């Protein structure tokens, strides 16, 4: 016998109200109506999100605006359709090393830019870039396109390490027409309908809180004795930096020739200004990556891969109007100071990102074939002489 039934029986003999309530609760008529109501409400929410289409993955509306602050990284991969269709005039594309560029910073740095958007997110890989380039190429409002040459251009992102790209948003399969259906999706849809702005869900933190003023809450890597010991250990191993390793051929980076270079050439021909940025990794990272992360994607021959990305882009775009490659690796005030970094790869300070953005906007720190030997020599010397 169900314990509830026993309880009902004993309670009903004592108190009439209690017995009535318990009888109602135990009544056989309430079960399916309650479940049906829940199901119907969820279905209604699903239909609502489907038609509201906050991320413009089903209908092109040209009316949705992007918010003026960075988005949580999880949301960023979904912003591509709105960025491409609804009037963004500057786009930053890259992975984790370019996440720190904020719209406000970009607007301040680049004159004439009104609606910038940063589409960088951690572990953004070739799958996302393959979606992004054709869509951004089709944009009629794009004036400036900043491409951060993250290491993920070479090998993509290792699955299982938080690849935030949800391909259901781009697959266009009829069996998954509303991939944005979720509690977040309902909230975002309501906000888009009310304000016209595609913003993050209300309860998620504003991402710029983690960038602007970030240095107060997240310590630089120098604050970790354990990390500094590991970096010192790696730096003291002879030839660990891999600067003397043979060159990595451009043919081993098929994404460049197949996807990136043809697209940017066409865009540049239309007058879109293309800025490639080489993300400034800390000098300490080269030895560390080679020694400590053998066998992982970011490890092994890190130096030659990084240099290959820079060299191959430079060679493929040299002399093409409206295309520039900016490098900051040999600015040792950035790369030689670990106080600027939260780990050996990622910059920490808002001010450093801003400084880099200003220098890109000003057309500085360009790498050209004539500067290549000196640049390579200076970086090698900087890495080999560096001790944390």
């Amino acid at each position, binding site marked *: 016998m169900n314990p509830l039934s026993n309880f009902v029986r004993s309670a009903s003999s004592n108190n009439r109200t209690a017995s009535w309530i318990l009888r109602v609760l*135990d009544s056989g008529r309430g079960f399916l109506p309650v479940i049906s109501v829940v199901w119907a409400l969820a279905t209604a929410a699903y239909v609502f999100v489907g038609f509201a289409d906050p991320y413009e993955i089903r209908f092109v509306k040209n009316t949705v605006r992007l918010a003026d602050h960075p988005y949580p990284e999880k949301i960023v991969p979904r912003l591509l359709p709105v960025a491409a269709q609804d009037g963004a005039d500057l786009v930053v594309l890259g992975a984790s090393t370019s996440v720190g560029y904020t719209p406000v910073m970009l607007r301040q740095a680049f004159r004439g830019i009104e609606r910038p958007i940063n589409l960088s997110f951690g572990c953004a890989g070739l799958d996302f870039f393959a979606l992004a380039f054709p869509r951004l190429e089709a944009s009629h409002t794009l004036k400036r396109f900043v491409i951060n040459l993250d290491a993920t251009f070479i090998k993509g992102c290792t699955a299982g390490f938080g690849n935030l790209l949800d391909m259901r948003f781009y697959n266009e399969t009829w069996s998954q027409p509303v991939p944005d259906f979720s509690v977040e999706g309902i909230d975002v849809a309501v906000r888009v309908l009310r304000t016209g702005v595609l913003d993050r869900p209300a309860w998620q933190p504003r991402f710029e809180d983690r960038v602007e003023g970030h240095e107060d809450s997240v310590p630089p890597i120098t604050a970790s004795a354990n990390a500094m010991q590991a970096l010192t250990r790696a730096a003291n191993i002879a030839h660990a930096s891999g600067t003397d390793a043979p060159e990595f051929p451009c043919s081993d980076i098929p994404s460049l020739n197949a996807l990136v270079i043809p697209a940017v050439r066409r865009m540049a021909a239309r007058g879109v200004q293309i800025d490639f940025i080489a993300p400034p990794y800390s000098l300490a990272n080269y030895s560390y990556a080679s020694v400590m992360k053998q066998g992982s994607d970011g490890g092994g021959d890190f130096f030659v891969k990084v240099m290959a990305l820079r060299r191959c882009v430079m060679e493929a775009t040299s002399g093409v109007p409206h295309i520039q490659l900016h490098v900051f690796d040999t600015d040792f005030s950035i790369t030689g100071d670990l106080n600027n970094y939260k780990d050996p790869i990622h910059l920490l300070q808002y001010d450093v990102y801003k400084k880099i953005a200003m220098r890109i906007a000003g057309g500085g720190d360009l790498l050209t074939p004539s500067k290549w030997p000196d640049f390579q020599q200076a970086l090698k010397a900087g890495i080999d002489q560096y001790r944390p």
Partner: protein
Amino acid sequence: MLFIDPLFLFAVLPLAICLFYVFGTLCGPSAALGVIVVTSAIFYAPYGALPFSILAGSLCVNLAIGLGLSSARFVSPAIRQLLLTGGLVFNFLLLGAFKYFDQIAALVAPMAGPILGVVIPAGISFYTFHQAVFLLDAFKRQEDVGKFLAGADGAGGKLSVFTRYAAFVALFPQLIIGPITYMSEFSPQALRPGFGRLRWVDLQVGVTLVIVGLFKKLVLADNLSTLVSPTFAGASTNLPISSNDAIMAIAGYFFQLYFDFSGYSDIALGIARCFSIRLPINFDSPLRASGIVDWYRRWHITLTRVIALFVFTPLSLWGTRYAAQRGYKGWKRRAFGAWLPFLLNFQIIALWHAAKGTFALFGLFHGLWYVLETEVKASKTFKAYRARTSDRFRGLTGMAISTLPLMLSLALFRSDSVNAFGKLVASVGNFAPPEIGQVDGNPRGWLKIAIAAFIVYLLPNIYEVLRNYRPGIVTYENRSTAVAILRVAWRPNLVWGLYLGGLAIVAFTYLNIPAPFLYAGF
């Protein structure tokens, strides 16, 4: 489609249920089965044209052979044997070609790349076994098969038989990941005169199973995946892993796989029940098993029984005869009659998942454990121990002994390679301070594992809760090990409606997470 696709849950499923009862009431059982077939086609179509064609072709070939085997025209045993062999060869070749060919080629020549280069058709492992069992039943001229395939004369009759057969094999709740159903279980239900007429209790039990399954998959299993995936990926890519993370990943996967796969099975049984069909129960609190023998009576039950039918039983018969012919006694007799069949049985179960070294090792480990346990249980010492201890004591002791080896074997099952498994297990002893780039520990990890353990070890499973309403077909009778006071019985009343409605709301909030069922890859 997946059970967790919102389009399926909010549009296809409710519509299909409505049409099933409308057609079933107005036009009869055949029309109701037709609705199931059409829904199954819609459900399977997103997997692509090639998998769809393979399924359709497989259905036609097996039905034709099944009709031949059950027909009174073919009386010659040789012809019938030939038909059966041909059918089985066809099924297993199809499975081998699409599932194993490229995997074995990759093992032989890793750099050569895939030869066929096609994605494994969804559900092929399951519908192959499903139909192979059907052919065996047809060969034995089981009464159920004869009734089910009767009336295949004329175009209308052939269409009717095809519809029935397609509904049996391609029944969408069980098509992708089982449970593997026998004709003797399906036929009496589908052929009963009132099939297709609404019985409220079917809907009530069905939605209960669906909601519990969704909760297990979306809330429990997918939340545990955050403890599991980064650490297992870290083990594959040589990233440092702390002791804490390694233990959480091993324990987390133990619970995740159970909630994920049993959640799927619950949904499958629930959806089928909404269409007035009871499927066999596939999971019966396996994590509370008292040993490996008990484990396989509770875990993926319908695969266990099919492999036993095709592998263990014939091998054991052959081995026993072989040993008897040669006059073997003692351990030699047991080696041929039981040990070798067990080892092969578990190797087949393991490699059924994929041709991988980790699976082979997993199968070997389970096989050896099974042999050891059956020998121990047959010993005089154990019989004496059984005589002086209670079932409950032995169950708890067995569970205490078995849990760690089961956890480790499933971690091996989950690992990308034997090396990665070794690295993961070695990391259990890594108490060094965290390094740069180390896989991040999950601060709420232990809370998640504690909740999972509470549900697994103390609460009754949903089939125990629904015990008064026969939620599924029972293959093995297992004693309940749930805490007696928590062993509540479900009733279709408002309290349970509110409780399940609450579970459904929580589950729906996780619907957007793109995490397919773990077993969908097999």
